[in-house]
């Protein structure tokens, strides 16, 4: 049996009988690091046979910011701003995962209101992140207007976040033990209004883009990740769900207070195309937005006044040991492997399991046989953030 990663020597690979007869040479095409469709500084070396991709080799590290090295030199609170900058589109979720790892080792009790507000911010951030994915994916495929709509809606969330945390993109809001600031009733009311607005807006986006025939033609049946591939490569999040596996850590291993909430886990059902293609991956995100709104509504009902900060020592020192903490972030499962040697103010080791890193490693698997334009659609559909890939 040929193993999964091995897609054969590029020279020897036959695309179809026609090209075999033409005996055309493979052309090396360099996509990136500066390329509008790679969402940052991903560089992909593509070996093409006329318009058909024969082989794609991702080259990473153009944004390698040595975050793991920094984490070993900073105190536990000081790591949070750096964790923010991993996935800068979902900074709240990044913080939350890291903070959860520290709290688990520290054994901190987080007040109920803080946990609920964390779910609120996490889900709002998920919406913001998926909106960004929606806007830029449409931009990749040549539609500019959805980008403007998505950003207009995203700005509403960012304004809320700025009011509560003080920054637009990188918040440093979720702290060890709780939250920095509390939400006022007026802000929570606006969150409720935003929920109504977002539901209407999601319907509009679906009409505008998702069910557009041209969009479906561009994305359905393109870049199919089979379920076995996803498991082999360790894909998570919308990529795994788009391939038809109903796996969501919020349901399957409920952390925080997610077990109290009622929501669905959308999976790629092959409404158009087949499960695992670009359209289904994209659609999982759009459906998740609606589910997030549903969760936020429930949070607003459950919220009661109370403290937002648990008891945390002034200087955090963790006992000797290690934890591996996973969370469901917008792009997949983020995990931190936190090792502490005891009696130190710094982590001994902080390994980031980034979902996008795994997803990028799937590109060589899916690329052979695609058109170049379809390959762009595939790269866009896995929604990578390079800050997290390279760390």
């Amino acid at each position, binding site marked *: 049996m040929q193993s999964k990663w091995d897609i054969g020597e590029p020279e020897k690979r036959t695309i179809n009988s026609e090209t075999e007869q033409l005996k055309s040479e493979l052309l090396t095409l360099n996509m990136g690091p500066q390329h509008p469709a790679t969402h940052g500084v991903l560089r992909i070396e593509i070996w093409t046979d006329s318009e*058909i991709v024969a082989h794609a080799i991702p080259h990473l590290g153009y944004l390698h910011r040595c975050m793991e090295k920094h984490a070993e030199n*900073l*105190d536990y*609170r*000081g*790591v*949070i*701003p*750096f964790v*923010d900058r991993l996935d800068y589109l979902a900074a709240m979720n990044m913080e939350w995962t890291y903070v959860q790892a520290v709290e688990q080792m520290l054994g901190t009790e987080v007040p109920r209101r803080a946990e609920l507000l964390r779910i609120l911010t996490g889900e709002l951030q998920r919406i913001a992140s998926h909106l960004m994915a929606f806007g830029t994916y449409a931009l990749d495929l040549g539609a500019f*207007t959805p980008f403007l709509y998505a950003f*207009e809606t995203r*700005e509403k969330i960012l*304004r809320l976040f*700025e*009011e*509560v*945390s*003080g*920054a637009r993109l*990188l918040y*440093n809001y979720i702290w060890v033990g709780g939250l*920095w*600031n509390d939400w006022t009733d007026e802000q929570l009311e606006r969150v409720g209004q935003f929920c109504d607005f977002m539901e209407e807006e999601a319907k*509009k986006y679906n*009409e*505008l*883009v998702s*069910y*557009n*025939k*041209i969009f479906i*033609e*561009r994305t*359905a*049946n*393109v*870049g*199919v990740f089979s379920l076995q591939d996803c498991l082999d490569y360790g894909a998570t999040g919308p990529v795994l769900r788009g391939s038809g596996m109903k796996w969501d850590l919020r349901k399957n291993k409920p952390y925080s207070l997610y077990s109290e909430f009622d929501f669905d886990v959308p999976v790629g059902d092959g409404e158009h195309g087949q499960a695992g*293609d670009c359209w289904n991956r994209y659609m999982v995100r759009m459906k998740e937005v609606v589910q997030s709104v549903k969760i936020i509504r429930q949070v607003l009902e459950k919220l009661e006044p109370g403290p937002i900060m648990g008891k945390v020592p002034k200087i955090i020192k963790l006992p000797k040991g290690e934890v591996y903490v996973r969370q469901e972030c917008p792009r997949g499962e983020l995990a931190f492997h936190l090792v502490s040697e005891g009696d130190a103010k710094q982590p001994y080791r902080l390994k980031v399991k980034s979902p996008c890193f795994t997803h990028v490693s799937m590109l060589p698997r*899916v690329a052979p*046989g*695609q*058109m170049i334009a*379809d390959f762009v659609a595939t790269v866009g559909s896995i929604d990578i953030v390079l800050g997290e890939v390279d760390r």
Partner: protein
Amino acid sequence: MSTNVHQTGSVKDYFLDLYNGIRTSFVGMWITFKYVWSAKHVSIEYPEVREVLPERSRMRLFNDAQNCISCTQCAMACPVDCIYIASEKYPEGHEVQKTSNGQPIRLKLTQFVIDTSLCCYCGLCTTVCPTECLTHSHDYEFSQYTIDSMKYDYLAPDVVAWRDRIVKS
């Protein structure tokens, strides 16, 4: 093989595809067209109109040197080490001043420099300040032509004028 091959079907399918393509495109265009009369004005015409920043917004740091007690807690909390504080003891017989919230100033501040080009605006320094003299102002318009002018000495005489500018705007 995952290329997007058009399914060859009957003539009916062909025209159905065509119809769906045109219909869905018009649905999208109609949504955009509605913006002609129903859209709210979202653009902020920046230099003339400014968005009112939320109270907690974290922009350029400002240190009120008169209230600083040189405790260096901010420098310790700073994850990027961009705050440089130095202080020395007052000569003997010096009358101990007090900050606005009543803390005695026992050390003479001789240097308070923040390198703004390194700052990551995380806000950790302001939360530990015991006298609340180090704050995030709401001033974000300070782009510079040279990198050296990004370093701010908060003991310089012109810093008061700069603070006045913030207070006014």
